[in-house]
């Protein structure tokens, strides 16, 4: 763990106090040692000085003893020797004392001077080595030298008696000064020792305080650590730090384990974290973004606005062997240090539910929009046309219901049933989108989705159709709503004056769904398709007026499907057309004419044409043919594949094409009228459908 600022300063303080106290202690010890040495020396000197103090009286007494012996004519030799010893001792001790430093110099000097004057009277006494007595047989008396000696002794005695007190006083002064010095040194030592003890006490106190503070700090740090751990364990977001190598740091929040279904994060690189969970392109973008974050060039706000991981779709193992899609939100914050960016803090949240919710909201909104669109569309459409559509749609849905109720006992029957459903739905969708009733078209599209899902299944039970039945019910209810709205709108329209140019009243046009309406429906569908698919083409209609009323609904249905196919598959995108040196705008031509045998409907677009090879491939992909069967087909038979139920070359499905119901619906309708349909093509140039219909009287009007 990193040291906090207070922690570091506390450590510095501890070290500093330790050093200071150690220095103080060593100083105390050194000074103490020196003082002790000094005191020891002083005590020795003092002893000598006190001994010296006794000498003046001793010398004086010895001189007196010597004189008394001479008076009584006793033996003087040993007293003489004692005196000599005393003088020698005094000399030595004085000399030793004089060498001692720090004595009271005046007193010392005075004492020494006085002693030197002693020498003047003592030296003659000591120098005497004659025989003081002259013995006769009866009496003893002082000899001549003895008398001299006596006089010397007497003089010295007198001198000593006079000066002993003074000398003693001087010596006492010297030892007093010595004593004072020693006492001062002792006092200093005492002071020093007290200081030392105080210092030790302080040291102890400081150590105790620091120890306390440290343990308190440690406890605080431990608590903080525990709190951090609790936060990281409890917080619902995934938190971690990235270092300059884009690797995850040692500390991360527990939520990461749920978010990423793994346990080891420390040292993991950001790339490894996301690998296998997002597509490689996304991973590459994410890695680049992280690098940019470290770049410091861009502002954090800017980086936030281009964050490609704001809503990241990840696919995770769901723990049951499958994959599950989740949405994660990554937020990045740069952590600045004194030397620029130190870390990048990443916060990861699971926003799956909010994404799904917003999607639902969006769908609901779309629904509302499409309702509005529909109303607007209905305002622009002929209510009768809508009415006719609603009738046929209801009939269609009833048919679908009937199909659903048909019992199907084996796979073949199921497939047949599904193909029937798909066809019905597809033509219903075509009509609805031609009338701009997008809400209906979208619902039918959903139903188609459901049916398409069944197609892939090998086994179906009645229950599988249940959701389909529910959806159908919903659609029927919707149709009722639309019908009601149509009625209201038409009554609204009737109540208001007819706009200019619409002279015919609905009543007059009752039951007519004439060629003009068909033409306008086809033109508006063509415009819509061109817009939806970004294609540019022009629809030309010829001869529709010649179409017998009995054929018109079928012809309309067929043209709607073919027009959609032409817009989606036939007409190429602008760029492709330009590259192929075609005119910018595509052409779709419809010619209806009378011929000897009845009628002929030609539908031609100058688009990409049909490729027999592509058709065969698609048929194999859709499992309509096996690869071997496909290989045996010639061009003509290959082209005929487009009339097979379930055929489509589109790999993705859109509202307008790709369902695989389309040309088979057309073919079936044509056959229903007793007609024939054929296709011819020139790849890259055109596709042409030719539909031959018998004269109207030859067939029973459907």
């Amino acid at each position: 763990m990193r040291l906090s600022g207070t922690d570091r300063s506390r450590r510095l303080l501890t070290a500093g106090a330790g050093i200071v106290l150690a220095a103080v202690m060593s100083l105390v010890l050194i000074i103490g040692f020196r003082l002790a040495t000094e005191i020891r020396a002083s005590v020795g000197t003092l002893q000598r000085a006190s001994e010296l103090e006794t000498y003046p009286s001793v010398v004086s007494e010895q001189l007196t003893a010597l004189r008394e012996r001479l008076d009584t004519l006793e033996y003087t030799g040993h007293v003489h020797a004692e005196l000599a010893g005393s003088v020698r001792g005094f000399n030595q001790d004085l000399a030793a004392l004089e060498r001692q430093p720090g004595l009271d110099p005046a007193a010392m000097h005075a004492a020494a001077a006085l002693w030197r004057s002693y020498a003047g009277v003592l030296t003659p006494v000591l120098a005497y080595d004659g025989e003081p007595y002259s013995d006769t047989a009866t009496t003893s008396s002082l000899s001549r030298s003895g008398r001299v000696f006596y006089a010397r002794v007497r003089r010295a005695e007198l001198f000593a008696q006079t000066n002993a007190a003074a000398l003693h006083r001087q010596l006492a002064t010297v030892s007093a000064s010595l004593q004072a010095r020693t006492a001062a040194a002792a006092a200093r030592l005492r002071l020093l020792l007290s200081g030392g003890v105080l210092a030790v006490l302080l040291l102890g106190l400081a150590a105790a305080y620091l120890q306390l503070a440290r343990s308190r700090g440690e406890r605080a740090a431990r608590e903080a650590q525990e709190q951090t751990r609790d936060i990281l364990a409890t917080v619902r977001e995934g938190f971690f730090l990235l270092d300059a190598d884009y690797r995850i740091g040692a500390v991360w929040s527990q939520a990461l384990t749920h978010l990423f279904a793994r346990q080891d994060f420390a040292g993991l690189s950001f790339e490894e974290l996301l690998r296998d969970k997002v597509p490689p392109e996304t991973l590459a973008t994410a890695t680049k973004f992280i690098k940019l974050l470290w770049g410091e060039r861009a502002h954090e706000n800017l980086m936030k606005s281009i964050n490609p991981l704001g809503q990241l779709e990840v696919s995770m193992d769901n723990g049951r062997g499958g994959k599950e899609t989740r949405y994660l939100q990554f937020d990045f914050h740069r952590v600045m240090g004194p030397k620029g960016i130190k870390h990048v803090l990443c916060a990861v949240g699971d926003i799956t539910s909010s994404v799904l919710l917003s999607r639902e909201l969006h769908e609901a909104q779309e629904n509302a929009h499409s309702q509005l669109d529909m109303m607007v569309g209905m305002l622009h459409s002929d209510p009768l046309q809508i009415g006719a559509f609603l009738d046929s749609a209801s009939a269609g849905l009833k048919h679908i219901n009937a199909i659903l109720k048909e019992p199907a006992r084996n796979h073949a029957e199921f497939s047949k049933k599904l193909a029937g459903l798909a066809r019905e739905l597809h033509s219903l969708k075509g009509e609805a989108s031609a009338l701009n009733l997008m809400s209906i078209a979208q619902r039918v599209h959903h139903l188609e989705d459901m049916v398409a899902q069944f197609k892939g299944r090998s086994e179906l039970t009645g229950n599988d159709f249940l959701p389909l039945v529910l959806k159908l019910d919903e659609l029927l209810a919707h149709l009722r709503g639309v019908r009601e709205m149509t009625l209201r709108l038409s009554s609204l329209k009737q109540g208001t004056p007819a706009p200019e140019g619409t002279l015919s009243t609905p009543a007059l046009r009752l039951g007519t769904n004439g060629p003009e309406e068909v033409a306008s429906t086809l033109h508006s569908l063509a415009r819509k398709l061109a817009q939806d698919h970004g294609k540019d083409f022009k629809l030309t209609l010829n001869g529709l007026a010649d179409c017998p009323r009995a054929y018109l609904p079928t012809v309309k249905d067929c043209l709607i499907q073919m027009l959609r196919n032409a817009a989606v598959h036939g007409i190429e995108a602008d760029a492709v057309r330009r590259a192929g040196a075609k005119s910018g705008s595509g052409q779709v031509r419809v010619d209806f004419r009378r011929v000897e045998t009845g009628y002929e409907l030609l539908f031609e677009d100058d688009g990409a044409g049909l490729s027999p090879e592509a058709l065969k491939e698609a048929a194999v992909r859709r499992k309509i043919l096996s690869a071997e069967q496909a290989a045996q087909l010639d061009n003509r038979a290959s082209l005929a594949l487009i009339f097979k139920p379930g055929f489509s070359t589109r790999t993705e499905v859109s509202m307008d094409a790709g369902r695989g119901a389309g040309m088979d619906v057309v073919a079936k309708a044509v056959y229903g009228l007793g007609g024939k349909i054929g296709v011819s093509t020139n790849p890259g140039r055109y596709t042409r459908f030719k539909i031959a219909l018998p004269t109207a009287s030859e067939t029973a009007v459907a």
Partner: protein
Amino acid sequence: MGTAQETVARRTIRLLIVDDSNIVRRRIERSQQFDELEVVGTAANGLEALELARRTDPDLVTMDLTMPQMDGIECITQLVRFKPEIRILVISALADKATAVEAMERGANGFLNKPFTDRQLNDAIAELMY
């Protein structure tokens, strides 16, 4: 008497506008509220932009990403190579964050989503230049 009015002579910023839409170009031109900003050229595609940049030596470029002939990403790459200190503000309707990241990586300095308000544009420029 009277104090001398001191005018701080700020260097003019030479702006090059790159966008394939005439409307957007004019919109950017009009929204300039900085006195010290001078539009030195407008280009409708990357190639034009490069040529203009060589001629007019701009300090700041507003850059669209999807353009014919040469797209914004390529143009940024070359602009930065030609004048490393140039500041580039990407203005794009692309919701695709990957492209934004790519642009930043190539050397763009800022990013602004279309549609934008005058205020957003001026803020973005201010952030880049001051």
